[in-house]
């Protein structure tokens, strides 16, 4: 085990994948200069080994023009004809520039060609929300892609999951979109430096509990854990479950975690309407209604664009305070004054 940041784990997974398979290429804006720190050795190893361009060459590290539609489309075409690209799209809101390629080509080509195509391609993008980047850089758009059958959508919340899930994504023969919450990039964890693969479609119980269940997505996961820590001080025992991948979704895991306590809060940084929380809540209500002891409660970002000013932005996302308040509301208790506003 070694301590890795989330970003370091992404870089490690990319390097493993590049070494393991010559068909893996990295395509994206500014990947040659390792601007985001995922296409080079980390720390000391960077000085020794150089960046990916030195290690793997320009044939496999493809620094692109700013042309999202052809970046995405070419990655799809390359995947259909023998490569296994990892595409770095930088910001998640840049995905919209290539929406036709995602929805009409990546998602549909295998299906509408009767299985003739397989499209092993990974699209990485970072959600810069919570960092005062304004409305064009703060989107959390994964629910839009959950609504497109044919795409896989993953949202790792921890460095260890980022590494294992990215390796599985590269190994998948289907298009996978990985959404990285930028606020998690610096988070650190003990990570196995050897190769391992975390399966898509299997969630992770972060914390066991018996009074209430929080199902949390992406950047809301550490906030849910912080809320659970605070609630533990009040004698409230909270289960925290992270689905880790939204398509395929660990429906069994979600339902089991929900039914365990019957009092469920779903925390999701996406917008409320048709967000991941909406789908998760609906599944719970449909399938384990008899186990519920209160209506499922969502903690999401309101259906509002993201303002720039830190005074305005910070309050919008699911944070530990809002999540803890939602759990207390499920249990019919109020926050003790000592812990109010954690």
């Amino acid at each position, binding site marked *: 085990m070694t301590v890795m940041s989330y970003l370091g784990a992404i870089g490690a997974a990319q390097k493993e994948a590049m070494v393991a398979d010559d068909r893996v290429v990295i395509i994206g804006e500014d990947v040659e200069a390792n601007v985001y720190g995922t296409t080079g050795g980390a720390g000391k190893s960077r000085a020794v080994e150089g960046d990916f361009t030195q290690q793997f060459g320009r*044939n496999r590290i493809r620094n692109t023009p700013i042309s999202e539609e052809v970046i995405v489309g070419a990655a799809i075409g390359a995947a259909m004809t*023998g490569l296994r690209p990892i595409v770095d799209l930088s910001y998640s809101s840049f995905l919209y520039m290539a929406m036709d390629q995602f929805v009409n080509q990546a998602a549909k080509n295998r*299906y509408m*060609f*009767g299985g*003739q195509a397989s499209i092993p391609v990974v699209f990485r993008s970072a959600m810069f929300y919570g960092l005062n980047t304004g409305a064009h850089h703060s989107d959390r758009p994964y629910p839009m892609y959950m609504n497109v059958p044919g795409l896989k959508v993953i949202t790792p919340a921890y460095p260890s999951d980022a590494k294992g899930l990215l390796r599985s994504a590269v190994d998948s023969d289907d298009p996978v979109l990985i959404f990285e919450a930028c606020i998690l990039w610096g988070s650190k964890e003990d990570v196995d430096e050897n190769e391992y693969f975390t399966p898509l479609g299997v969630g992770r119980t972060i914390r066991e509990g018996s009074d209430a269940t929080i199902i949390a997505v992406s950047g809301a996961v550490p906030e849910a854990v912080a809320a659970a820590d605070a609630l533990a001080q009040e004698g409230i025992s909270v289960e925290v479950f992270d689905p880790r991948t939204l398509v395929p979704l660990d429906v069994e895991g979600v339902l089991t975690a929900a039914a365990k306590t019957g009092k469920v809060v779903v925390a999701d940084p996406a917008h409320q309407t048709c967000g991941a929380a909406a789908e998760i809540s609906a599944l719970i209500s449909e399938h384990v209604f008899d186990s519920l002891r209160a209506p499922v409660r969502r903690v999401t970002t309101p259906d509002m664009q993201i303002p720039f000013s830190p005074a305005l932005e910070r309050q919008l996302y699911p944070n530990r305070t809002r999540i803890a308040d939602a759990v207390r509301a499920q249990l019919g208790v109020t926050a003790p004054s000592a812990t109010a506003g954690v």
Partner: protein
Amino acid sequence: MTAHPAPDVTELSDDTLVEMQRRMLRIRRFDERASKMVKRGAIPGTVHTSIGQEAQVVGACMALGDQDYMTGNHRSHGHPIGKGAPLGPLMAELVGKSGGVCQGKGGSLHLSNFEVGSLGESGIVGGSIPIAVGAGLSAKVLDNGRVALAFFGDGAANQGNLYEGLNMSGVWKLPVIFLCENNQYALSTPAHTVTSGVIADRAAGFGIPGVRVEDGQDVLAVYTAVNAAVRRARSGEGPSLVEIVTYRYNEHSEGLKLGVDYRNADEKAEWVAKDPIVLFRAELIRRGILTDESADALEAEVLKEVDEAVAFTDASPYPELSVAFDDLYTDSVYVTRHFNGSPYGTLEAAR
């Protein structure tokens, strides 16, 4: 991998020349039959025929090797046929039968036939251009000697992704041929009313060759231009833009009836007078490669192939309902979790 020999137009064998005529005839008769089948309801939905554009299709396809890739658009029955695909599975696809190239899941708008390098049509105008760029990228990275050709129309020439693709493949010297099938109308809109300048000239802005073939009804003229672009791509010099001026005889799509006469009868008659199949038949006879009798026999053979394709289609069953749930992903995790043996629904219920 050995590169496609790509003979010069003057070195084409008699057999190859006859094969060109055969493939043009296949496209013509296939689409004529499809048109009739749409009109009597045997093909659901509609089709977009390549009738009138056969020289442009076949001249381009025959400049490609068997291993080369191509992508198409909504008007793409001709492309796999031009590349040598058998007609039966293509016709079965138009009808939605299980014997179709896409098992009935694509239809006319999404024909693809990977066995002949056809990576698929896009029903979104211009949508498959980046796919061809990617096929060129894989050929370059894997150094397998293949090239990729993107077929698109004069309408798609005004989509932004073409210029992203020209730029990316230009700067990376990808083996891609951008082939504009300029049939002069985007549905009802005359190309000259929405196109600033000449399409082929736009290549100059990317520092790559741009060629306009004015006589796109001459299969050998098309072959010559595309062959040069293919050779250039295969030798590592990068992409080219080739614009072929041609004409579709039928309406944009079969069964479409517009109140506006956007193409007058004189114009159509002018183009029919230089029909690519009639012209090339005469050329083959002039060269002594075919006689009137053998040319007639060729036409009869192709008609028989089309009859057989229809018979193949008739004999092919419609797909099982479960096929609707196949091939979304390469693994079955998703469908299994959502519909099979779970407390939250069954495949049966999903129907």
